[in-house]
Structures are given as C-alpha cells and as structure tokens.
C-alpha cells in the first residue's frame, strides 16, 4: 500500500512565479491496484509521480509505503521498491552500453556493484529468453549498443530492465507516448503481462483513454493538482471512452 497524505507543493515559492500545485492532496493506492491516471497537460500527473518517487520535494505532507513513513527517504533509496519507465526511451536504458550489458546492469539491482564480472554468463540464456518473448528481434542483438536500437526496442528494454528484480511498485509516465501505435500496443501488452506475473502495484499516466480503461482497474482524472474523478468500478459501470472524453 502506498499513501500520500496532506501533500502541499508550491513551485517557485517567494517569487512572482509562485504557483501552488497541490493543496491538501491525498491518495491511497492499495496493493495490486493498476491505476490509470489521465488529465490535461500541466494537471500535475508527472509531479505526483515525482513526489512518490522522491524526485520532487514537497513543502509538507507525508508519503508512506506499507505504513512506513518514507517522506525523508532519498530518491535512490525509494527505487529499491519501485520500477519506473519514462516517456523517453533513452532514460530507461544506457545508450552507450550493449543490450547484454544493460540487462546485466539491471539484473544486479538490489545487490552490490562490486569488482566481480559485470556480465554473468549463466544468465545470458534467460535474458535471451525474455528478449525473444518481445518478438522485436532483440535476442539477436545482445552485443549491439542500445543507442542503435529503435525507440520501441529501447522502451521494451527499459520496461524489462525496470521490472527485472523484485519490486513492489511499477510507475509508468506516458511510457507509450513516444511510440507509434503498433509498438505502443506491444509495450502495453508486455506491461500487462509483467504486472500480472510479478503482481505489481501499478500507476500508469497515459493520454490514451482506451489504454487507461482496458488495462487499469482504477481510473483517476486530474485537473490543476486535484483528483476530479476516481473510479474503481468502471468495468462494471461500463464507463465508455466517450463519456470520459466529455469531462476531459
């Protein structure tokens, strides 16, 4: 369970550009929920995610994981439980390193980065296996630098890398927005598969309302730093994309 309590966030405090985004913002995310977050540009979706991950400091309030207050925990410490995929495929991978090196790097998360060999030879087959499932021809590109891959291939790798080791939360910020529709579909299917397999609690920001409805089991719509719609039973209530769009 992830909880945000009484979050306040003011940007550029004390200047003429001062603007308050979050005012007494509260959110409770239950275990195994798959929350889709939609909302206009500038409504605070990315800021919300940054507050959860610790990449954005808050003015007051509390962030907790499973009841443990982590408000003062540093960003890098929080990622021991979080996997995160960004909109730009390049952020989730190391472009100067090969596919194999990237997989090995991510595979070692949570362990010590010591002076033993970076690539564990006995893991190569299992990497190949995972890459083959993507059907993006990555299993034949183990020694290719990630920078030479397509955006879709890179984003698929970013997703694999973010979820390779045991984590509890998966955070996705428009992770299909930079991809063409066909590749976006592949990435969404892969996302769903991983979330189910690893039983991850997921928060996904998206502008694609169909994805939000199809893959999520809770829908949140944001506007100017507030939650203006929070619907868990939309599958039963059969909310349609058109209805959502009318409020959007």
């Amino acid at each position, binding site marked *: 369970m992830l909880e945000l309590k009484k979050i306040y966030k003011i940007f550029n405090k004390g200047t003429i550009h001062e603007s308050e985004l979050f005012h007494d913002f509260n959110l409770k995310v239950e275990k195994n929920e798959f929350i889709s977050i939609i909302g206009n540009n500038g409504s605070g979706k990315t800021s919300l995610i940054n507050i959860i991950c610790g990449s954005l400091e808050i003015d007051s309030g509390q962030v907790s994981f499973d009841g443990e207050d982590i408000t003062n925990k*540093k*960003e*890098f*410490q929080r*990622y*021991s439980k*979080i*996997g*995160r995929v*960004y909109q730009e495929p*390049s*952020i*989730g*991978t*190391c*472009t*100067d*390193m090969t596919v194999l*090196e990237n997989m*090995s*790097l*991510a595979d*070692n*998360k*949570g362990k*010590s*980065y*010591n*002076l*033993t*060999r*970076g*690539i564990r030879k006995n893991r190569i087959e299992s990497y190949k296996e995972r890459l083959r499932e993507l059907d993006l021809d990555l299993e034949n590109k183990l020694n290719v630098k990630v920078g030479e891959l397509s955006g879709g291939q890179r984003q698929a790798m970013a997703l694999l890398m*973010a979820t390779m080791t045991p984590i509890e939360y998966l955070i996705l910020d428009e992770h299909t927005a930079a991809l063409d529709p066909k590749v976006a579909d592949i990435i969404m299917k892969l996302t769903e598969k991983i979330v189910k397999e690893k039983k991850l609690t997921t928060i996904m920001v998206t502008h694609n309302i169909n994805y939000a409805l199809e893959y999520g089991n809770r829908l949140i719509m944001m506007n100017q730093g507030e939650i203006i719609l929070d619907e868990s039973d939309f599958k039963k209530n059969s909310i349609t994309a058109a209805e959502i769009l009318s409020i959007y």
Partner: protein
Amino acid sequence: MDIFIGILEQGMIYAILALGIYITYKILNFPDLTVDGSFPLGAAVTAYLMTNSGDFVSVITLSHNPYIICVYALIAGSIAGLVTGIIHVKFNIRDLISGIITMTGLYSINLRIAGSANVPIFNYDTIFSNSLMGSIFPESLLKYKVIIIATIITLGTKIILDLYLKTKSGFLLRAVGNNQVLVTTLAKDSGNVKILGLVIGNAIVSLSGSILMQQQGFFEITMGTGTMVLGLASVIIGTNVFKKAKFMKATTSVIFGSIIYKAAMSAAMDISFTKASDMKLVTAILFLVILVFSEGKKKKVKADA
C-alpha cells in the same frame, strides 16, 4: 631516430595521463580541471619522498623505493579526486568550478609538499634508473629503457582499466556518465558513483605526473599548466581517428592518440621560429585545431543523417 624515441617516450608517459582523463571526460562526462593540480601533485609527492628517502619514516613506509613511490602518487591523486567529487556532489557546485577550486588549492599544497618550485632528483633512484634496471637491461637496449618501462606501465594501466570497466562497479561508472537517472532508478546513489570516477581518474593522472617527473629528473611547479588540454587532446585525437576501428578498445585508441599528439607537437615545435617557451601556446593552438576538426566531422555526420 632519436626524435622518434623521444616522441614514443613522451607519448607513452602522457598516455597514462590521457587514460585518466578518458575516465573523467569520456566515461564520467565530467570536464575535470582538477588534473592541472593532480598531475603535478604526483610529481610533488615523488619529489618529497625521494629527497627525504634517507629518514626513518621512509624506511618503515617503503617510500624510498621509486616503485612504491608510484603507489603513493596514486593515493595522493585519488584524494584530490575525492575532494573535487565531494565539492561537486555534496555541495552542489558545478563540475568545472569544483575542479578549479581543487586545482587552485593544489598549487599551494604542491609547493608545500615539494618544498620549492623546482626540485631536481638527478641523484636519486627512479623507476627508470636504479641498480635493478642496470642489471636487467643489456647495453644494447639501454637506449630503449624508458620506452620499454613506460610502455609496460601504460599497458598495465590500460589492462587494469579495461578489466575494471567490465566489472559491475565499472558498469555502474559507465552508466552514470551516460544516464544518471538510470543509476538512481537502480537504487544507487549516483553522486557516490561520480565521486568514485573522479577518484580513479585523478589517481591515474597523478601517477603519470610522478612518472614524467622521474623521467625528466625534476619537479617543477608549472608542470601542471595545460595538463587538461594536453590530455584531452590525446583523448579526442585517439577516439576520433580510430572511431571506425570497432575492434579496437577506446583505451587503446587513447594511447595511440597520445603518441600522435606528441608527434604533432614535436613537428610544430620544430618549425624554425618556435622556441621552447612557445610550448603552451602551441599546445593551445593544436588543441583548438583538433577540436575544430572533430567538431566539423560531427556536423557533417549530422547533416548526412
């Protein structure tokens, strides 16, 4: 013939410097000016330890041995890198400024360590001339002694670096220069990884300072000026000239870059109207030419794409 030997000697010794700068500039993506201070730091530490090599402490710490002195130079350089890293990471000071702060401070520290602005060590054992070397090298090879020893040290450094960059720690170092955010999402403090990179880079730079000093036979406070420019020129030449040679490791390219650079310097200094004191000016101009050339190439690549 002698001029070629000179170029190879200098090229090999400065290649160690270039390997250090390769770590900070290329791997870490950090323009580290600390090197203008950590290069003479290695030389100053060497000068101090050699000229004090008779006393009791030096016997205990083995610092009368020129090879052990190289280890002390490495340690001194790593402390300089640590200081720059802490200034940058813990106090949030910009990369260039952090290096300048350490470099400026080191000028005085180096003077204190060495004792004066110019310390000759002609009468002391060095890694190039000592009784052991005298017995190993036959008469016919004496001429190539410096090249051989410098090449061994340079290749040794290169091989250790290559091996390190293939370890888990090395992977993380490569990742932090390429994509700091990724390192954070791997639940690692990217700041600490950067500090580690600066420690390694400056340790190597300081080692090269010690070796150059032992070869030329004296410490000079001004020997650090332009170190960054000189090392970076070798790195840029090496990585650009051998870009297409995929089979070649970047560290190897950097070593060749250093030799090519020394050859170019030697050619430029040979022109009749240049005199010895023009060295730094020639260094600067040559660096500019290299930058313009490599940048020009990049633009062309972009235009082609």
